Each structure stands twice: as C-alpha cells, then as structure tokens.
C-alpha cells in the first residue's frame, strides 16, 4: 500500500509539474496579441470553450445545491477525491526507507543504528540499575543526526525514584556521551516485585 502510494506520488508529481509548465507556456504564447483571434487570451478562452464550461459548472453547482439525484454522484466523487488525497498525503509524507538513527558521521563514513537494536541495548543498560524491575526504551531519531532515548522504568517498592533516575542516566552515558543522543527517563510507577 505504501509502495503504491509512493509510486503514485512520483507519477502525480511529474504530471502536475508538466501540466503547470505547459499551462505557463500556453498563457505566455497566448498573451502575444489582443482580441479574440490568433494567439490572444480571448482566443484561448474560445479555444478552450470556457463559456460552455462556465455554464456547465454553474448548472452542476445549481443541481448540487438543490435537492435531487446529483447529490449521490457528488457524494461519491467527494469521497473518492478525499480518498485519493489521503493516499497522496501518505505517499508524500511517509519516509521511503526505515529511518536510521545517525550516530556519527565523518570522512570515513557514517555510524548509524536501527531503532530497535539501539533500544534493546539501552534497555539492557537500564535494567542493570539496582531497583529497576522493568524498562522500556523508545528511540526517536532526529532528522539530521542523533536522537532521543525515551525511557520508562518500573521500580521496586523500596527503590527511590530519584536515585533510580540518576543511576539509569549514568548507565545510559555509555550510549549518550559518545554520540548525539539524549535521554529522557521517567520512573512513573512501581512495577513487579523483584525477589
């Protein structure tokens, strides 16, 4: 579905740009002379039958605004347009590849990480903290480089939340200090008892 949306976006982008370019050229050419004949804007309006188009659209608007059977067709067209618009929005906004976390880049190349293994490594570090019974880490990559480690931990009944937070931060320094990573740690709840 996403692949299809991406392909559709590429096709529509090209077609729209070609249409815009040709429309611009047509307007430029038909601005050469005046009147309603030859390469004039009046001539272009005649060529495109804009008067007929105006009457057609006007009568369609009138049908749409008045009670009648045109409403069903219009509703289907409206829904279809919205669906196509949403597909194009998906294709234009969703990234094409999996977003990697760029940890460092230099002349030798790039150091990067997939989000899940990086989160698992961070989880392993946080779960070594005394008093932490469970940790969940999510990695949010930044657009250019670096990212944020969002940590939620469960603590044992006897553990002090501030101490857990400080210790978890200390543990994560193995990841955050060498790279452009920042951590945000929340110790919101008491979790399962550790025995």
């Amino acid at each position, binding site marked *: 579905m996403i692949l299809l949306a991406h392909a559709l*976006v*590429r096709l*529509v*982008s*090209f077609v*729209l*740009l*070609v249409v*815009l*370019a*040709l*429309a*611009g050229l*047509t*307007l*430029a*050419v038909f*601005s050469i002379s*005046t009147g309603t004949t030859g390469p*004039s*804007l*009046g001539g272009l309006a005649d060529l495109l039958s804009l008067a007929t188009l*105006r009457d057609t659209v006007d009568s369609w*608007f009138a049908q*749409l*605004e008045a009670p009648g059977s045109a409403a*069903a067709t*219009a*509703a289907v067209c*409206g*829904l279809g*347009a*919205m*669906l196509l*618009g*949403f597909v*194009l929005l998906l*294709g*234009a906004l969703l990234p094409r590849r999996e977003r990697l976390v760029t*940890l*460092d880049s230099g*002349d*030798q*190349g*790039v*150091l*990067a*990480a*997939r989000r899940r*293994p*990086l989160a*698992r*490594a*961070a989880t392993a*570090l946080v779960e070594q903290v005394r008093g932490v019974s469970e940790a969940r880490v999510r990695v949010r990559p930044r657009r250019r480089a670096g990212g944020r480690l969002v940590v939620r931990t469960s603590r044992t009944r006897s553990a002090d939340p501030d101490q857990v937070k400080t210790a978890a931060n200390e543990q994560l320094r*193995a*990841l955050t*200090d*060498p790279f452009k990573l920042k951590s945000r740690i929340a110790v919101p709840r008491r979790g399962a008892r*550790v025995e």
Partner: protein
Amino acid sequence: MPRQRLRERTSPLVIIGRLVTLVFALALVWYGLMTLLLALKASSATVDSLSGYRTAFDWLSGLTQRDVDSGATRAIVAGAGLLAFLFFGYCALKQIPRPYFARRDLDLSADDRGEVKVEPRAIERLAEVAAAGHPAVTEARGRYAIDDLSVDITVRRARDLADALRESQERVVDALRRHELPAMPVNIILTGYERRHRRDIQ
C-alpha cells in the same frame, strides 16, 4: 545477479514536486469534503464561507476580455507564464528517475596486458571478516556499492556499543588500505543486539 542493487540519483528539486503534490492532495481532501457537505445538503452559504467555491467561481466567470487585454496585464501574464514554464519544466525533468546498478566490479587497473578487477563479494567478505574480528561483534554483513561500503553488524555488549561501532569502522578502513583497495566511505549500521543473559537481579 541476485545481490544486485538498484539505486537512483535524486535531485534536491524532487522536493518541489513533492510540495506541489502535497498542496494538490490537501486541496483534494478539502474540496472533496466540501463536495460531500454540499451533497449532504449543508447550507451552500456555509460551504462557500468555508471554501470560497462560489466566490471563486463568480469571480472567474465575471472576467471579461477587457480585464485581460491591457498591455500591462498581458506582459505580467506572459512573464509569469514563461517563468512557470521554465521552473516547472526544469523541476519536471528532475523528477525523472535515473537508476543505476550500484553493485559493480571494482576496476583497479587496465592496460595492454588486461584488466584487474575485484568482484563486489570479495570486498564485502573483506569488510565482514574485518568487522567480525571485533570481540563485541557477533555478526557482520557487508553491502558494497560504488558509492560506499555498508556493514550491518550485530553486537553483544551494550556497554561497548560505541567502541564496537567505531572500531569496526576503523578495522574495515584499515583492511581496505592493507589490501590496497581504494578508500571509500564505510558506513557501519547497528542492525542487531544479541542479549545473551537476562538481567541479573541485584
């Protein structure tokens, strides 16, 4: 060529096409919704105040030849049309994909006596062996392309992650140099973390 990879050269101007499509998509959603509202017999005055469909239509249908026939108007229209043609035409050209095979033999030398080439798999294997030589790396997989050499690695120690990534890169760069292969960007990508033991309860 089962390992062949197809890449494409993209221009920064692709973003213009994306923006135009984005605006078009938003217009489709918005005016689709307005059509739906009209079909559901919402007040046309309300829909017009939201979208301006009637106002725009009335303004356009009220245009006469006299409005567009003056010299200044035509000059502005012609200039804008020409600029639009050049700009959007150039952007449209840049949208055309330019694919190429990224995984090719590396030509080292060619003379009267023949050619010296290195197959991509040899370079990938070299990188894999160099990276996997690091004690924290359990698995390495190379992907050679003419632009760069990427190595996907799996590590086993979270604490040494930064060193493992940096040292793996240095090992691969060093291996390329030792084998007298041309220097190229070496990208190290962490694709796996092998957790041997669950946490020790303290």
